[in-house]
């Protein structure tokens, strides 16, 4: 599976290495949802820097990962969207709401820390 998933503290970092097939996207979603509850995580970071294309299916899957994870108590941040990919996405009117986006891993950690602080200690 072309996605490397590593754990960092209370967060899970899923790094997508290459374009995903529809099945792989679905597997990633189930995998992440499963682990969030098991490991009592507070956040998921999905790195899509290696993707040349984010189509409507991938965008919807990312959104559903975020919603599922939220129900299990974790926030999701997408990082590394390339300029070309961003332009294509807005032109096809794909949006990632309610997902948050960040430039890179550093930024994503800041975003997650902020929401963890803002929302209290229930996850810890």
């Amino acid at each position: 599976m072309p996605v490397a998933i590593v754990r960092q503290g209370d967060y899970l970092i899923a790094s997508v290495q290459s374009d995903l097939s529809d099945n792989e996207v679905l597997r990633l979603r189930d995998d992440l949802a499963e682990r969030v509850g098991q490991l009592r995580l507070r956040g998921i970071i999905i790195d899509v820097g290696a993707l040349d294309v984010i189509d409507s299916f991938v965008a919807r899957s990312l959104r559903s990962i975020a919603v599922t994870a939220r129900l299990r108590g974790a926030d999701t941040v997408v990082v590394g969207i390339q300029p070309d990919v961003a332009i294509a996405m807005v032109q096809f009117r794909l949006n990632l709401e309610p997902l948050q986006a960040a430039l890179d891993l550093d930024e994503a950690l800041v975003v997650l820390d902020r929401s963890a602080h803002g929302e209290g200690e229930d996850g810890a």
Partner: protein
Amino acid sequence: MNRSDPPVVEPAEAHEDGTSLLPELIEYLRQHRTELRKEWVRRITDADLLRVMTPEEIFSEVTAVYDNYVDTLKTGSVETLQDYARDLSERIIPRGVETHEVLGIVLLLRDVLARSLFVKYQHDSDLLNRILDAYEPAANRIAVTVGVSFVEERERVIREQQEAIRELSTPVLQVRDRLLILPIIGVLDSQRARQLMEQLLAAIQTNRAKVVVIDITGVATIDVGVANHLVQTVEASRLMGASAIITGLSSKIAQTLVDLGVDLGMMRTVGDLQGGLEEAERLIGVKAKERHSVAGPEA
């Protein structure tokens, strides 16, 4: 039908004559250079063409064109004339000479010369016909060459200027760490809007920008297309992890946007650039503080 056989020979004769007629024609144009030139200038002035140039300038250009014209008739090669026409266009385009003037002038010369040929050969209509056979194709080719050279030169100038305007008018400036300003001045079309978006996103990536202030004080009007491009730019910035603030919406543009029903609900707008920068610093300040407070325990 069978009677048409003998006359077939005639055009061949005429053709032979035609080739020998051209030198005669050229000689005629050389000899009457002064008066034909004067006549041409008079027609140009009467037609009220080339008003941006002084009479002396017109006369010297006219002389050069006339000589080139005769040369071209003689050699049959338009290259020298083409070079001259291009050079001439380069000089007169910045002074505001219009396409219709150039075409009008070239056609006037054609008329002046044809008219004088009529006068000279009016007693011998057969010879006149053959002279015109030799003259007309060459003259038309010259008119086309000059006209096309002028238009090509004009298009080249326009292309260069468009390029220059495009490059000049879309700077992305870093004001301080992680804060970019994009001042937009002039007319926004879809090509430029797209270019702006690309530049901005690339700048967000290289400068690791957190906040972008897009100032549209210098944009006079806005339509649905441009408004949508702005919305797209804001959304694409968000996908790259940067917040965008739009400043400098004039009351007219604000009203237009409301009338058009463009949904700007997702956009953060502030009245002027100063306010936008204050808002941006506040956003960055808040974020920087958070970064400090969490840096320790995580490490």
